[in-house]
């Protein structure tokens, strides 16, 4: 039986070795007109599908515009997008596939911090520069010197909303309801709590949920019992809409506050009247007066039939910064590209002037939007100082 088992193992081995030796993928050495392969791993499907889809559209539009003008260093950019289905370890697989199977020179992704954190070690290990357009948890760029982001980070974002609650809404007692499963939410909640308490406010309730949950009444009842002036819900749009509805049903009519995880049309679609009068911080306002923003919105709308949300704008900016870095470096991959990205200074992005700081994060302003009349409306800007 020992032998039989070994035989079977041997057969399985030979079979798979033969199969594996089949059509192998080997990257070709680049000729001058060879496309530059850039990978984007994103949540095109699953719970946070709008994030991935919007980001991809923004990136795609940026690369198409660049290619229309002749590409970078005389070569066109080829975008390869892998879906991670909003699942954390799929992000890692997707990044791996892009790096090893498709041999991309740079990676764009992801929006969700947990997913960026899962993929970043792969990029770092392979020496492939990775730019996250929207992950705000500080730990993402701490993974290594090949990992960058072109958005602000949560210590800043948490402070923005804490100050907004305290100064603008005059709230003194705030409840927090965060997503225990997402690093983004955990981190943002922590930074909010710290700043709010420093300002002299009180956190009267601290409840948690898990992304994918649909029933929040238990936690909301506990929160209601603490009589808060406002509730901070630093989660993703899928749950935020439901939370708002159930809160209103329970008679909780205080304003809800959130972060850029709210930035999706679905928040209003799901939340409906329940999210009216709520506020959240994000990266840009589509109804801004800035002519560049208006032009971008117009072009995006013409191409995609909808107003670009923050993820689309961030994707667009991240893609253009990558291209700009390649042009500055004179090279399309490796340490030279990495150093060029790190040296990005005052880049004119749709989401603001972008400078990459020594921690490989971007120094940028935040905007607070209000949900009013079924739309996101610009409320105010908070500068990066």
């Amino acid at each position: 039986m020992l032998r039989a088992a070994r035989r079977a193992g041997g057969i399985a081995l030979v079979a798979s070795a033969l199969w594996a030796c089949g059509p192998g993928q080997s990257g070709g050495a680049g000729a001058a007109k060879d496309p530059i392969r850039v990978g984007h791993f994103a949540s095109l499907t699953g719970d946070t599908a709008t994030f991935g889809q919007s980001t991809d559209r923004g990136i795609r539009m940026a690369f198409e515009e660049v290619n229309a003008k002749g590409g970078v260093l005389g070569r066109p950019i080829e975008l390869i997008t892998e879906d991670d289905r909003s699942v954390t370890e799929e992000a890692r697989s997707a990044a791996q596939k892009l790096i090893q199977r498709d041999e991309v020179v740079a990676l764009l992704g992801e929006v969700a911090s947990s997913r960026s954190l899962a993929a970043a070690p792969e990029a770092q290990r392979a020496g492939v520069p990775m730019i996250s357009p929207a992950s705000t948890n500080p730990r993402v760029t701490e993974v290594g010197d090949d990992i960058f982001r072109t958005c602000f980070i949560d210590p800043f974002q948490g402070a923005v909303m804490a100050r907004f609650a305290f100064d603008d809404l005059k709230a003194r007692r705030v409840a927090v309801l965060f997503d225990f499963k997402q690093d983004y939410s955990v981190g943002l909640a922590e930074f909010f709590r710290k700043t709010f308490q420093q300002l002299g406010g009180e956190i009267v309730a601290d409840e948690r949920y898990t992304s994918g949950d649909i029933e929040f009444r238990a936690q909301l009842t506990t929160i209601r019992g603490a009589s808060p002036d406002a509730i901070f819900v630093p989660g993703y749009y899928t749950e935020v809409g439901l939370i708002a509805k159930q809160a209103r049903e329970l008679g909780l009519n205080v304003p809800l506050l959130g972060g850029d995880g709210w930035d999706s049309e679905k928040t209003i679609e799901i939340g409906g009247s329940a999210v009216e009068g709520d506020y959240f911080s994000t990266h840009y306002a589509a109804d801004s007066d800035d002519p560049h923003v208006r032009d971008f919105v117009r072009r995006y709308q013409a191409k995609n039939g909808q107003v670009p949300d923050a993820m689309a704008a961030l994707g667009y900016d991240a893609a253009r910064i990558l291209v700009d870095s390649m042009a500055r470096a004179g090279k399309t991959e490796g340490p030279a590209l990495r150093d060029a990205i790190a040296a990005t200074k005052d880049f004119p992005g749709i989401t603001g002037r972008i400078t990459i700081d020594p921690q490989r994060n971007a120094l940028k302003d935040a905007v607070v939007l209000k949900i009013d009349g079924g739309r996101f409306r610009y409320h105010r800007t908070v500068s990066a100082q």
Partner: protein
Amino acid sequence: MRARTLAAVGASAFAFAILEWVLPRALNPYYLTILTRIGVAIVAAVSLQLVNGFTGQFSIGHAGFMAVGAYASAALSVYLGSEWLAALASVLPVPLARALYFPLPLLAGGALAGVAGLLVGIPTLRLRGDYLAIATLGFGEIIRIVILNVDAVGGARGFALTGQNGADLRYEDLGAIYAVVAISVAVIARLAYSSAGLAFRAVREDETAAAAIGVATTRVKVLAFVVSSFFAGVAGALFAHSEGYIHTNSFSFVRSFEIMVFVVLGGLGSITGAVIAATVLTAAPEGLRGFGEFRMILYALLLIAVMILRPQGLMGSRELSLGALRGWLRGRRAAA
């Protein structure tokens, strides 16, 4: 006899050489990853076969034990392993140091998983049939949710195998991995076809009758369960160290179902069946890229079709052996 043993040893050495030195140079790392995953699937399937196929106890919480093994071994490596590895590497050449270190987290993972199997098995193996299945499913989920709440092993972020000093603790040495696979399969096969194995099969065939003739059924069931969980832990540890990053999502009941599909399709009671099913069903979806969505549908349809049309699966409870192959060929030639 001696010639056969020599041939077996020779074949194994040859296979090891190919895995260790030839394939890593010839293949894209993406394919090497797939080969590793096949190895993990084989150990997982064969260990489940011991409980489901040979002892007839339908457990569907196997991924929970893999999770215990994966996280225990990863924790060992991350918190203690880097020091031990550095110590070994200071006196030995690095590959040798790594090879000597590697069995430690595997054994730790397996041991802890075995203990988990004992704790889970003692209460649940009193149950029969459907109830046992659901109880094991429940335990698998409880284990997973408990691990999810332990921050020291990453919680919802997942756990990366980087040591305290930043060392990369992955172990992707294909030869060593398949050596572990071969040993695991051999041990389980040995057990299944020993006198203890007879007791397993007696319990499978008719538990009440077996008890009536003096088989210590509870002890037998628990033994099968513990050994099975041990090797599930080893599979989990292999997985953790080859992937370099683990997340509880990889150990959900979907994974338990997948392994169950390998075992059922291969034939409940056949080790070779489990090996073949695990190999084919792990390799095929990667090869058929773009068929990702259809993979699970295919598994499900196969499962239903097999249960209705050919419930004994591919191999039934027979094994593939050289003698059987020769006999089959002779039969074909005679018929021709």
